[in-house]
């Protein structure tokens, strides 16, 4: 019988396809390492540009509001052209940093350790950042910005996740988170919540005050039973949630149109709504709140490390730090920044006691962060999974 030449050719094609897949998969998985590299010893010449990944309102060059600009002065001084991208959740930031496209990132406490562990950010030599000296000591060398005494960045500012309400619908100013939990049915369909697994901690903060028998000490260290209670609370809340937000513009619009009337928010959102004349107000409820403490970090494969160091120094300067943190609505990290803004007291800047009452976003890990050793805590992977189930 004659051998069919087509079969042989087909075999070769299949072989080739398999080979190319093998090559591609090898390329796809061998990137990334465990170590974040070494901190820079000294600075060189400016590269002329720097790309920055940050929360909305952190890198303003006057294009949103001509009066809000701390980028232009940096560009003039250093010659580093700034290119910036904003993100909506810490998870998004962690994921975007894996692309290696950014030199600098402003990360919250629930992202920093993950970035360090994945080797996406490098240690920072704070001796090369003159303005680091002015940063509050109670923000330096913390578990969310340093590992083994080695600093991974410059603290930026800190603040709390607040409760926002529409003053026309929620006529009695709320003082408790119960308007989005136990009393959520009163505003059914118009409650909003932050669309990230870390929001489970907000429920835990509420349970700390209202169900003390659960014994929650830290909303990021939940054992199986405590975690389940928080998840159940959120599943109940889900029936009344109109929509979840992670894009801050979406929340601004929803509060303007009245599609959302009560829910969690940031001060910067209230600032925008206020400037547009919307009838909304914010409050820090009596149970306390979750919050963030952000750190400027440098990518481990930064293409422009010198401009990156220059940016870290610039944003830690009293003027820039004051402008950026005041615009976002958070306390500054630089003591001298309060000379450049008037509302420092409202944010309790420099008040280490107050700062310790905010539950800063931290990545939950199996080893309980509250120091318990007799139980295992629920880790962030399980939080993510539970979050999807809560949304259903």
């Amino acid at each position, binding site marked *: 019988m004659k051998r069919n030449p087509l079969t042989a050719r087909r075999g070769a094609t299949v072989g080739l396809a398999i080979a190319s897949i093998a090559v591609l998969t090898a390329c796809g998985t061998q990137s*990334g390492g465990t170590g974040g590299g070494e901190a820079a010893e000294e600075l060189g010449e400016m590269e002329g540009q720097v790309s920055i990944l940050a929360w909305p309102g952190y890198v303003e060059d006057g294009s949103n509001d001509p009066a809000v600009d701390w980028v232009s002065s940096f560009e003039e001084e250093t010659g580093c052209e700034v290119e910036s991208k904003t993100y909506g959740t810490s998870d998004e930031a962690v994921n975007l940093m894996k692309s290696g496209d950014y030199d600098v990132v402003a990360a919250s406490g629930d992202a920093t350790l993950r970035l360090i562990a994945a080797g996406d950010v490098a240690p920072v030599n704070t001796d090369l950042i003159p303005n680091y000296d002015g940063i509050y000591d109670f923000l330096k060398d913390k578990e969310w910005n340093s590992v083994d005494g080695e600093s991974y960045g410059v603290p930026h500012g800190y603040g709390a996740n607040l409760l926002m309400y529409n003053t026309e619908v929620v006529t009695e100013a709320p003082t408790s988170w119960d308007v989005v939990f136990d009393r959520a049915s009163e505003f059914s369909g118009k409650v909003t919540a932050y669309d990230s697994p870390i929001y489970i901690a907000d429920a835990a903060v509420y349970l700390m005050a209202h169900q003390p028998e659960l014994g929650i000490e830290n909303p990021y260290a939940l054992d199986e039973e405590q975690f389940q209670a928080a998840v159940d609370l959120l599943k109940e809340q*889900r029936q009344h949630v109109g929509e979840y937000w992670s894009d801050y513009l979406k929340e601004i619009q929803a509060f303007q149109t009245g599609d959302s009337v009560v829910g969690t928010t940031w001060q910067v959102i209230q600032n925008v709504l206020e400037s547009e004349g919307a009838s909304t107000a914010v409050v820090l409820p009596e149970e306390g709140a979750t919050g963030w403490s952000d750190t400027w970090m440098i990518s481990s494969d930064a293409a422009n490390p010198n401009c990156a160091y220059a940016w870290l120094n610039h944003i830690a300067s009293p003027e820039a730090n004051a402008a950026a943190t005041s615009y976002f609505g958070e306390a500054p990290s630089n003591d001298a920044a309060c000379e450049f803004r008037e509302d420092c007291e409202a944010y309790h800047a420099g008040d280490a006691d107050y700062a310790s009452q905010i539950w800063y976003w931290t990545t939950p890990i199996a080893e309980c962060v509250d120091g318990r050793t007799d139980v295992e805590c629920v880790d962030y992977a399980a939080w993510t999974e539970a979050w999807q189930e809560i949304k259903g």
Partner: protein
Amino acid sequence: MTTNAPTRHPLPARRADFGRKGSAFLATHPRARLALLLTAPLFWLVVVYIVALVLLLITAFWSVDSFTGQVRTEWTLDNIIKVLTGSLYQTVTLRTIGVALAVTIIDVLLALPIAFYMAKVATPRMQRILVIMVLTPLWASYLVKAYAWRSVLSQDGILEWLVSPFGGHTPGYGLPATIITLSYLWLPYVILPIYAGLERVPDSLLEASADLGGRTWPTIRHVVFPLVLPAIIAGTIFSFSLSLGDYITVNIVGGASQMLGNLVYTNVGAANNLPLASAIALIPIVIIFGYLFLVRRTGALDNL
């Protein structure tokens, strides 16, 4: 003339000679011709499309390190089992199929009369205008249209303003809003194949049916419908598969609801669990393949 050419103009003639030799070679070697023609597009198809899909399939059998977020390349069936047995994935799959079916039904019901009018009733001038009108929305960005519906469906949007005098209310953000928006977005993709199918139905058949005493409905049921059925199914393939994979519209107008696309998105984005996302992405692929397999015999695939 041609025999003298080399001596008089040696250089250009030489080039012409190359070209002629080349074309002579290609004329007598059809396989080489085919290879030259298809190498680039086939390379594109295989590397960018098929390899990407196969990689997706392979990734579904890996897992991810929960703390560092690195993909671990050890074979495991965990993701597939989780997606098949988890109640979350079953609920969301059913919801997604429900939305896709509702969108498809609404689109077919809207497209049939429009396409019939365009193909059989309108004057040639009107016909051209209608085709342009159907195509015009495709010139606007998908996001612009979805956000437009977000403001239309909002509590103080135009829909509420229109229906509130009659005691009605906007559905607000949620699954109904998602179905409305998706139906709007995919309508042109359903009208066009049905219109093309109806154009191919000869008018003489309609006249013959009338001559034989067939009224409007029997004519449509027994003459027109069987002839355009493949075209209708071709249209449903578009609306069904596009709805099945959508996650942006539901994010914008869907309120708190999730569809399969959102689960893929959160697993890639928020959870950084590419293997699980790949496993979830296999669900719509399987559904679409099943659907295509079912409609293969109707001849709808020739109408795409």
